[in-house]
């Protein structure tokens, strides 16, 4: 087995931060090589150095690829040699077709720039077959689910004759089924001589498919584990990532469930564009003071739509049903009313829905409760600063200060800013949608602790998550959702992933 890629002594600095220090990475040809580390450990930076996003000369160290030292000046240089990176945020054009996206910038055109669509469609069909996607090359990206879009990205990489495929958090937004299919595809690529580098926080997947694992911590290499010579499990990786043993990934909590707090009855919502098409079909949900309730379900089962429709009708039309707070009917007809009644909704997509990235930490934290730091519409600077400093300390937001722009924060810290915003709004009922997506083990633990704290204060917490172990670890009770309905409800004690999957599958008439 030969080495396809070696990165030696890579160091990279940004103003005020040393992102990478003397990192070494050696990748064997035809293996799946995982890179693990907490948020801010330097994984993405390392991959940007490799792919030429940070051109040669902006970093120290050398890159040896296919036996030669390479000095990439731009992404095109690395792509030319078969190094393709697929970012966490997919780079597809929503209103173009699959075929158009696959050959975007790489068109099957003659020298006059006229595209040969016949060839493009033919090759697209072959590529889609290779990645196991049964869609017409004509289908628009916007009509595909996120899992299928991920496959289109991979097909696009294959079209560029990929030799080294880099995937940044490829399964972060996929459900279990799609994740499994994707991982199987990567394993299959090994036989075709395609090497993969995968960055992921899902350690169970890493442990399952990797041949080697390089672990980064604080911008430096900790070690490279050869999974072929030693048995590997999640705890082994976690220990190396955080530099200590993490015996329990979920903080302990003294459960104390009080009086019923919030309830919705026969909640029905129509699709925002197609009136009459029900998306949420008669949901009954309740949460008591001090209780953490989970909603499990596959991507597209309607969990986000449910939460957003409850939160001031932020989703859908013809929202019908009863909402009760403390046993009394409550008016949730606008977002302002929902917030004033004591609801908070932490969105699934913190960058596009949760934060104003052009603003600093302070302004984001106070946004949902400006009257709380203002008198007659005039903001008290110092009160605001005190609030921001308090939450920065309370939630341990790692930043240079409260005046740092949120765009420059890591995912986990961004999520803490969003949480701070809603904590400052002083809600009774918190709906958290995928609160730990794409953030590292340490930050996850901190967020679980915050959830516990909220429950201990007598608030009601509703957690939507695609990670079943997470729901099992932090919730008291779990609703299982499928196709706009709750198909099951179970206490978390005694529930298992298999049991949840079984209730989802029962819907489809599949014996689990």
């Amino acid at each position, binding site marked *: 087995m030969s080495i396809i890629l070696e990165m030696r002594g890579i160091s990279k600095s940004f103003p*005020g931060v040393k992102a990478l220090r003397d990192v070494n990475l050696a990748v064997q040809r035809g293996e799946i090589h995982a890179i693990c580390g907490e948020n801010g450990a330097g994984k993405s930076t390392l991959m940007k150095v490799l792919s030429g996003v940070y051109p040669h000369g902006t970093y120290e160290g050398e890159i040896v690829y296919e036996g030669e030292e390479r000095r990439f000046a731009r992404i095109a240089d690395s792509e030319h040699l078969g190094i393709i990176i697929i970012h966490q945020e997919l780079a597809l054009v929503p209103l173009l077709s699959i075929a158009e996206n696959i050959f975007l910038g790489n068109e099957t055109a003659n020298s006059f720039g006229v595209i040969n669509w016949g060839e493009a469609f033919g090759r697209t069909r072959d590529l889609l077959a290779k990645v196991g996607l049964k869609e017409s090359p004509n289908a628009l990206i916007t009509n595909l689910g996120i899992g299928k879009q991920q496959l289109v990205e991979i097909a696009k990489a294959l079209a560029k004759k990929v030799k080294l495929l880099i995937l940044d958090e490829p399964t972060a937004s996929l459900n279990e089924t799609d994740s499994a299919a994707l991982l199987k595809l990567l394993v299959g690529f090994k036989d075709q001589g395609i090497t993969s580098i995968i960055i992921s926080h899902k350690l169970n997947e890493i442990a399952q498919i990797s041949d080697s694992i390089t672990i980064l911590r604080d911008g430096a290499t900790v070690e490279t584990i050869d999974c072929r010579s030693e048995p590997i499990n999640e705890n082994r990786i976690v220990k190396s990532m955080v530099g200590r043993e993490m015996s329990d990934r979920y903080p302990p909590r003294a459960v104390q469930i009080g009086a019923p707090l919030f309830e919705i009855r026969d909640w029905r919502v129509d699709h925002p564009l197609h009136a009459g098409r029900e998306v949420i079909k008669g949901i009954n949900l309740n949460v008591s003071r001090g209780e953490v309730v989970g909603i499990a379900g596959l991507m597209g089962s309607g969990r986000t739509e449910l939460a957003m429709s409850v939160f001031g009708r932020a989703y859908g039309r013809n929202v019908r049903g009863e909402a009760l707070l403390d046993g009394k009917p409550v008016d949730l007809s606008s977002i302002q009313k929902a917030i004033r009644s004591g609801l908070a909704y932490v*969105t699934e997509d913190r960058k596009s*829905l949760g934060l*104003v990235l*052009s*603003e600093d930490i302070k302004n984001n934290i106070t946004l949902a409760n400006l*009257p709380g730091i203002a008198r007659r519409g005039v*903001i008290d600077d110092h009160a605001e600063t005190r609030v921001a400093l308090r939450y920065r300390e309370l939630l341990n937001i790692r930043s240079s200060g409260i005046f740092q722009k949120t765009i420059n924060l890591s995912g986990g810290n961004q999520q803490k800013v969003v949480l701070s915003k809603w904590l400052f709004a002083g809600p009774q009922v918190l709906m958290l949608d995928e609160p730990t997506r794409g953030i590292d083990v340490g930050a996850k633990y901190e967020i679980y602790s915050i959830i516990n704290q909220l429950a201990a204060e007598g608030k009601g917490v509703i957690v939507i998550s695609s990670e079943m172990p997470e729901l099992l670890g932090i919730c008291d009770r779990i609703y299982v959702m499928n196709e706009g309905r709750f198909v099951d409800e179970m206490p978390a004690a005694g529930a298992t992933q298999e049991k949840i999957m079984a209730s989802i599958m029962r819907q489809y008439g599949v014996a689990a």
Partner: protein
Amino acid sequence: MSQSSGSNVAANNAGVWRAHLRDYGMLASLLLIMGFFEVVTGGVLLDPVNITNLILQNSYIVIMALGMLLVIVGGNIDLSVGSIVGFVGAIAASLMVYQKIPYVPVILLSLVLGGVIGAAQGYFVAYAKIPAFIVTLAGMLIFRGLTGNLLLGQFVGPFAKGFQSISAGFIPDFRDFGLFVAADGEDQFYWLTMLIGIIGAALLVFVSARKRMRDAAASMDLEPSALFIGKNIIFAVLVLGGTYLLAWRKGLPNVLVIMGALVLLYTFITTRTTIGRRVYAMGGNRLAAELSGVRVERLTFLTFVNMGVLAGLAGLIVAARLNSATPSAGNSFELDVIAACFIGGVSASGGVGKVMGVVIGAFFMGVMNNGMSILGIGIFWQQVVKGIVLLAAVYVDLSQKSKR
């Protein structure tokens, strides 16, 4: 450990410097270009008569730029302001000249009219969700056309002295009360203007020093003290120098007082009020703001109403200055106003921009207009130069940002 934290502090300081230099870089370039034109025009630019002119010519651009700032920061654009200037001016002139209505109610009516026009456009942008570019392009055509129809190609005027004094008037001085009157043959020096300048400069320094001390007490981030002192000296010198020059002319123009008050008001609104904060959040990320309880539709609507009122005010000032309403009044003002915003560092995609920047941007354009006119450069070459400066300013701004 101590080493790394030391370098972090240094890097942070460098960051603070850079952030502030970006702010004051604009001011520096304004001073630079003023210096340049002062030299090449042989001292005409800073002549008291010309200073007064410069202020009169730019006041309405500055006033509209304040409204445009909020519109653009909120994520929209308004192309109709030039036509609103013409239309409101024409209505006001017709009411005063043909209907003989006194100017005070006409002024109030004109401001309301501006607000109503803004509200109409704001409705289509905010609630009917038609892109602002389209709505205000339509408004630009409609109100320019209505102005033409109303005036039928004629100049309507002149106006009462009181109305003219909005633009042409100056604040009363001691002289009007028989104090400090210059002897015959001597130039009159307007002492009250100078006094206001001295008090203004002192207040400026006092307020910013007090804020700095309070911020320090609350352990907020402070700009480096060298920058703070330098900045205050520059501002104080500008205020004192400006009022000194004006005091040798006829004192403070009324329109400068109006403009100054509005600049202070909008600085306060954008930096200290919840509504200002919400406009910035809305422009930065509309969806996130909406999900945080910001009523984005109403807020968008209000930014347009506000723009309309300010455009109406500008229409009155322009009419008063020309002492008549003309079919072409306000022509292409929208371009100067929008250019002032972008030169002043407002982001075209919304969410970013400061009042001070916009004021400097407007005066940057104004000094260039004025300086080139004094030099006798043709109107078409002036446009070429202004276009290049707009492009260059935004280019420099963006390339500095991406360097970070």
